[in-house]
């Protein structure tokens, strides 16, 4: 077992997307505050704020006394948990075993080193991915999850691969990495213990009597002497991501830019799990109206943000916002298995099958019913023998006589001239009649004699005479 710990020291700050400073104004220091008793204390400060003398645990009033131009965020524990879960879902692309610890992700990488070409390439991929998503990161590798977690939290970029090296690697760490409760921390401080090395040297039974059994057990687990089972992260089976807007969203063109961010996140979520989606829902909240929504679908599950964006662009051509929106939420709740299904070898240029993306774009703009295939139905009545079907539906030929390529939506009555049916020209019947008499069982029975007829111009028509009243009708064109 080999564990890669990804510690996110700035997670509380990173969940707030940075707002660019107005033109000409210097960047303002950002801090995160949390309630602490009656007042508020700083939970985290960014490097700029730290350089101005602000420190975590400082009172907010003291911080404002030092620096008056501050961007202050209230700490959002739920957003941090969501961000960690989203990262965990993303990390599943590297290894099936991802555990979530406070502020830290633990990836079991012993089994996938070979696939990624060794430890260094794997770490580079993982760490670049995390940084690209906008999170500060410190990472460490150790044979046990706790040791990796402590090393990463300390910020020491250490790689330990053999369990025998663990005591030496851990001995230099300060006790702060253990994140102890105040009481045991106080006891250890009174004993004059400042590093893990000093703690490891103490007999475990005496330590258990003084600070409780949890700490000695954790030490044994960190050294690999005691079992440390971890529950793997189970990703949610739906995707929902919200962007709250500082200013109301007026037009769908701006919405497309926001959607691109949401779709990128969706792609990261789906590709970690080998899934795709076929239908997405965007929910807009408005200030004084109930929420409205926009549904987008494609013919085949996909997860590629670029494809979704292309479809979305066409979808919004004929749509508009009900009212200015204050937030946009992307919901994908029916996920389809995508990996393991055959993909086209040469991409769409290979020419086999239907160009799904094209059909999706056409359907998004023209309406879902505007793009169909046709299929035959084993039925004698001609108007019922052909129906709309989803594109790509195969059908069997019908054992029938000649049929016209175009069928009129409804038969058109033909007048008679000199006793012959007339359609701009006199129609001459070719050959004998094909009698179709069917449908008595559903009150739509027909009794018709169909003929192929040709006019003087050479055009061929499919006409019939109703056997009951003798009227002539035009039903199709042999184009």
């Amino acid at each position: 077992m080999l564990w890669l710990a990804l510690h996110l020291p700035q997670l509380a700050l990173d969940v707030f997307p940075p707002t660019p400073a107005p033109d000409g104004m210097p960047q303002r220091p950002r801090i995160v505050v949390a309630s602490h008793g009656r007042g508020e204390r700083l939970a985290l400060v960014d490097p700029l704020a730290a350089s101005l003398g602000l420190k975590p645990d400082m009172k907010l009033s003291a911080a404002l006394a030092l620096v008056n131009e501050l961007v202050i965020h209230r700490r959002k524990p739920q957003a941090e948990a969501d961000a960690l879960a989203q990262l965990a879902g993303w990390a599943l692309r590297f290894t099936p075993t991802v555990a979530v610890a406070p502020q830290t992700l633990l990836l079991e990488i012993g089994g996938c080193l070979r696939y990624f070409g060794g430890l260094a390439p794997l770490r580079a991929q993982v760490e670049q991915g995390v940084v690209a998503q906008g999170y500060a990161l410190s990472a460490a590798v150790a044979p046990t999850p706790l040791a990796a977690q402590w090393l990463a939290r300390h910020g020491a970029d250490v790689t330990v691969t053999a369990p025998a090296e663990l005591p030496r690697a851990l001995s230099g760490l300060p006790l702060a990495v253990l994140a102890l409760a105040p009481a045991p921390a106080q006891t250890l401080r009174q004993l004059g213990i400042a590093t893990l090395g000093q703690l490891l040297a103490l007999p475990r039974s005496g330590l258990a009597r003084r600070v409780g059994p949890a700490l000695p057990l954790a030490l044994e687990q960190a050294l690999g002497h005691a079992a440390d089972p971890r529950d793997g992260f189970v990703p949610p089976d739906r995707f929902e991501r919200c962007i709250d807007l500082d200013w109301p969203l007026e037009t769908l063109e701006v919405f497309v830019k926001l959607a691109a961010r949401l779709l990128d996140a969706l792609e990261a979520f789906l590709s970690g799990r080998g899934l795709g989606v076929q239908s997405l829902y965007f929910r807009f909240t408005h200030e004084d109206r109930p929420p409205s929504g926009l549904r987008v679908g494609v013919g085949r599950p996909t997860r590629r943000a670029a494809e979704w964006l292309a479809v979305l662009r066409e979808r919004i051509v004929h749509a508009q916002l009900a009212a200015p929106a204050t937030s946009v939420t992307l919901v994908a709740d029916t996920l389809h298995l995508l990996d393991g299904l055959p993909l086209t070898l040469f991409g769409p240029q290979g020419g086999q099958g239907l160009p799904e993306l094209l059909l999706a774009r056409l359907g998004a703009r023209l309406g879902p019913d505007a793009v169909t295939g046709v299929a035959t139905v084993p039925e004698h009545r001609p108007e019922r023998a052909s129906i709309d079907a989803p594109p790509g539906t195969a059908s069997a030929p019908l054992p029938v006589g000649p049929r016209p390529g175009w069928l009129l939506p409804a038969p058109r009555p033909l007048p008679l001239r000199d006793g012959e049916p007339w359609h701009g020209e006199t129609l001459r019947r070719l050959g004998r009649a094909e009698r179709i008499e069917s449908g008595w069982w559903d009150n739509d029975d027909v009794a018709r004699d169909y003929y192929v007829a040709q006019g003087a111009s050479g055009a061929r028509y499919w006409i019939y005479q109703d056997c009951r009243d003798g009227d002539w009708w035009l039903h199709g064109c042999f184009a």
Partner: protein
Amino acid sequence: MSPPFPDPSSLQQAMRQGAVWRGDRCAPAAARPSGHPALDVQLPGGGWGLGQVNEVLHRPGQGELALLFPALRRVAEEGRPILLVAPPWAPYAPAWLQAGIALERLVWVRAASAVDALWALEQALAEPGCGAALGWVGPQLDDRHARRLQLAARRGGGLGVLLRHGTAEQAASPFPLRLAVAAHGDGWRVRILKRRGPPLNEPLYLARTAPVASLGEPPPAVVTDLFGAPLAERRVA
């Protein structure tokens, strides 16, 4: 000393390879055989041009589909899709199957407006995976739209056919091929109004290659065609 004239054999060789285009022949082009040998001879490249829009002027219902069916059948057999954009009527499934076109390759795109139809046709023409795109537009098509269609077809490289009601025979268009099709007797009369090559003043008369009744088994009654000959015999002939 180099000879004063180039070697005549190398000139003939260059002519044979098609490196020099003579004005009395059709320009070489990527094409898909139309399935009508008499027509293919007259078309540049020997068939419907690929990567371009082929313009067919017609009156709907006068044989335009039967003219295209052989090429479309070939497209479907290659497993490539055929898109019909805004056809005048519903494609009738049994008939298209009788023409040998597998219906799983056929996509029918309806458009509520002429603008939507042009947009859909442009998208279909520009799609490399699309084997054939057939679009029906009205007689009026402004030059800007026509140019966009031609550019899209060049991007996509498939078979593009624009079927227009046969009015604007003399109007300028950026499309390199323009035919006028009309039913005539037991076949069609095709006039090539414009092609990359010398003008053709004589109309072509094509006969229907496939019999009207293409059944798995002969029809129960003897069906005669316009000239009174039984169709079954014609098929054998």
